[in-house]
């Protein structure tokens, strides 16, 4: 059986996939159902090679990273024990590839935005290629949660509204504390009886309330 090879190319990236058709599932002669290996050549970086699980790990990390980047909410993808991880780093993207061999330091690649876009497009081409029938597990793009998007707003702007609210509340509290409250013991009915204040004499103001209105 002839080994098949599929190649996906962009300006700075070339992804090559090799394998055989899975005849047990009735695949045609031009399809790849059994992956024997893949290689990724990024211009100016070491060529990467791996097996199916490494390709799946790369897809599971790069695709959601690109998804978050479109929403201006970049974050790290890839657990510490995962073979691939990607981190945002200033204006670049740090792709970390960890070897399964013990005592082997991880390989780190620093990609700029254009190189990352090339890599994403190569992976998109691979996923959309009907000849590749590997049933690779990749997360489908989803809208982000509000908490994930909150990070893109600077801390100062995020805190401005609650801080202003707290300041306004404090100011209102201070002002209300400065206003003198009438003391309950200072009320003198005798003094109020001789008062010329119309408010103190319900009869003059015509208000129906008060003891003077009551029949004797």
């Amino acid at each position, binding site marked *: 059986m002839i080994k098949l090879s599929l190649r996906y190319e962009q300006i700075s990236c070339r992804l090559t996939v090799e394998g055989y058709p899975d005849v047990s599932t009735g695949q045609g002669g031009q399809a790849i159902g059994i992956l024997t290996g893949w290689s990724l050549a990024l211009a100016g970086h070491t060529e990467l090679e791996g097996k199916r699980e490494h390709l799946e790990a790369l897809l599971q990390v790069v695709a959601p990273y690109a998804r978050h980047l*479109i929403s201006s909410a970049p974050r790290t993808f890839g657990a510490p024990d995962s073979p691939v991880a990607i981190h945002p780093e200033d204006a670049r993207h740090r792709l970390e590839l960890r070897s399964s061999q013990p005592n082997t330091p991880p390989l780190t690649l620093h990609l700029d*935005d*254009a190189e990352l876009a090339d890599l994403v*497009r190569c992976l998109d081409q691979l996923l959309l290629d009907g000849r590749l029938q590997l049933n690779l597990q990749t997360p*489908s*793009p*989803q*809208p982000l949660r*509000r908490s994930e*998007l909150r990070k893109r707003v600077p801390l100062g702007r995020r805190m401005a509204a609650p801080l202003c609210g707290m300041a306004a509340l404090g100011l209102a509290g201070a002002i209300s504390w400065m206003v003198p409250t009438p003391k309950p013991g200072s009320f003198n009915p005798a003094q109020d009886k001789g008062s010329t204040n119309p408010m103190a004499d319900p009869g003059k103001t015509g208000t129906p309330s008060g003891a003077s209105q009551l029949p004797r």
Partner: protein
Amino acid sequence: MPDVSIALSRPTPIPRRGLERLDLMLLCAEALDLNGGEAMVWMSEQLGYQTLFPNRVELWKRRCHNPLRRSTRRGQLEVQDTDALIRILTAMAERLYPMLRQLLSAAEPASVSDQRWTLFRSRLQELIEERLNLRRVGVRKLLDPIEGPQICHQLILSLALSAGSGGVERLKASLLDPEP
């Protein structure tokens, strides 16, 4: 809290903020391509959207649902209209990908890159002043000498990452993001 995983399985109308971004990205494509308006109509025909957008006026009317527009239209845009606009945009981004890549590449000489960005921003500014409501805060931010270039870079990066058929679902998901 509603589960976001089901958000894409049923047709969800794009929120106001998403419509703003979609139209701004189309505006960026027009700024990159001098004949962008014509290219958009041609792309619409190529993708088989003659019934949805039989002429450029219909296309323009859908884009006017962007609240930042000078002559904005009220109401919700139909899901099939937004889907068509997203597909037109991703197809245009694929066609313009070499230019997007040049703008984003750090390997380009700084002086050449600066010239390209200056040219792109000046064209975008002309389009913004012609079509968008300059009193809106979002538009003023785009024209701001400090915030504007950052927003432009983000729009170009989003265009590059949503180029081609593979970018359709990614872009659609990002346009459905809730407001932070």
